[in-house]
């Protein structure tokens, strides 16, 4: 029989682990988003080495496992003399990971249909930065916001791996509880449920605030 009582005794610990997971992923989400906004436009507008560098970054991240990226940043960088706390390394790895996936998604949104408004804005005398941030980016984001949110949730779920460099996240809390209670299966069922419900709640919550972020979609007939 499954016995959850022993596991519930550690609920404070699990919740604090969950909080760590959420905070790290939230920060990484913002950092990755900022990075992606920059990279997506860089790749589109600056041909040559800058664009190649963005491609190399995006392809490297997308074609290697997150855990290897994490180990490379935490252990590899330290061996070069750039020592980071586990939390900092996790934050850097999660941000770089999010940045690469977000770059591709945002580029998809920028691709079609932005030429005309870009030209109109340039013809009005706006600077390229104004054109991008004020005119081209908002409608592009509105087109790809759901994939972006989906990807963010995937990154949150994938963040379970940061327990492997001893960040005290939800998974690492689970591993601790499991060794104390000998109730591994129950612990992981509970923790899985926590991951699932946070991920789903985030998607649902986003669905509710979506129209506040993009008010012009309100009356758009599909």
């Amino acid at each position, binding site marked *: 029989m499954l016995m959850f009582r022993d596991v519930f005794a550690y609920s404070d610990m699990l919740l604090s682990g969950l909080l760590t997971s959420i905070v790290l992923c939230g920060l990484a989400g913002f950092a990755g988003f900022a990075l992606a906004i920059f990279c997506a436009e860089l790749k589109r507008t600056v041909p040559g080495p800058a664009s190649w560098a963005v491609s190399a970054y995006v392809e490297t991240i997308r*074609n290697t496992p997150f855990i290897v*990226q994490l*180990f490379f940043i935490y252990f590899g960088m330290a*061996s070069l003399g750039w020592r980071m706390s586990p939390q900092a390394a996790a934050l850097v790895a999660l941000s770089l990971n999010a940045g690469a996936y977000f770059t591709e998604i945002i580029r998809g949104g920028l691709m079609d249909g932005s030429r005309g408004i870009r030209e109109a804005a340039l013809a009005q005398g706006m600077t390229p930065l104004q054109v991008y941030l004020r005119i081209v980016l908002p409608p592009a984001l509105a087109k790809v916001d759901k994939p972006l949110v989906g990807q963010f949730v995937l990154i949150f*779920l994938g963040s379970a791996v940061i327990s492997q460099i001893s960040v005290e996240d939800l998974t690492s809390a689970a591993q601790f509880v499991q060794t104390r209670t000998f109730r591994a299966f129950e612990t*992981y*069922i509970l923790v899985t449920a926590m*991951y699932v419900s946070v991920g*789903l709640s985030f998607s649902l919550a986003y669905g509710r605030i979506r129209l506040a972020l993009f008010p012009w979609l309100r009356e758009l007939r599909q």
Partner: protein
Amino acid sequence: MSQFTTWGIVSTIIGKLPWTLCLSLIAFLGGAVVASLLTLLTTLGSRLADACVSMVIATIQSMPLLMLMFLCFFGLPLLQVNVSPLLAASVALIAFTAAFLTETWRAALKAVPRGQWEAAMASGMKHGDTLRVIVLPQAVRIATPGTVGFLVQVVKATALASIVGFMEITRAGTVLNNITYRPFLIFAIIGALYMAINLPISLLARRLERRFTFNN
């Protein structure tokens, strides 16, 4: 103090490459078989079966893959199954793959226009024949880029098997790192190996996708 030269490290890691490939293949083929069955189940027209399949897919896709692996690793023994890391990882990865492929393939079947079914049935073809001769070939074309692209996700996902103790290249890396402490070299090599496997697949998937979009 360590007997590992640079070349020793490289060859040890490459020596474990077959296990990464092997696990990827198990996951992909196993997942494809399960996904075929589930997809077939949903073409039979039972609402209940359809809803159940959707539920299972949604559940698997909304949980961390690592948790799925832990649940297999610690849950299967409760069913009196003797669990090796390879078995636990395989089961979890097959479930993960099956969920994605079922979703992709179902969507591909739905993307074939309703009129194709109607035209074939109107000409007197049976349900099964219509599916096999008319609808499937079109659905396969739609599903191919996504399926090929997912292979990259599978190869990357096998790295998580290292956490439950399966000795593939990432596991080899963590072990070697503990012995030699040359993490920069070790994880760069491992990253490069994953790139070498995945980049060609990614490029192929993108090409297939572009060809598909042009033809439509």
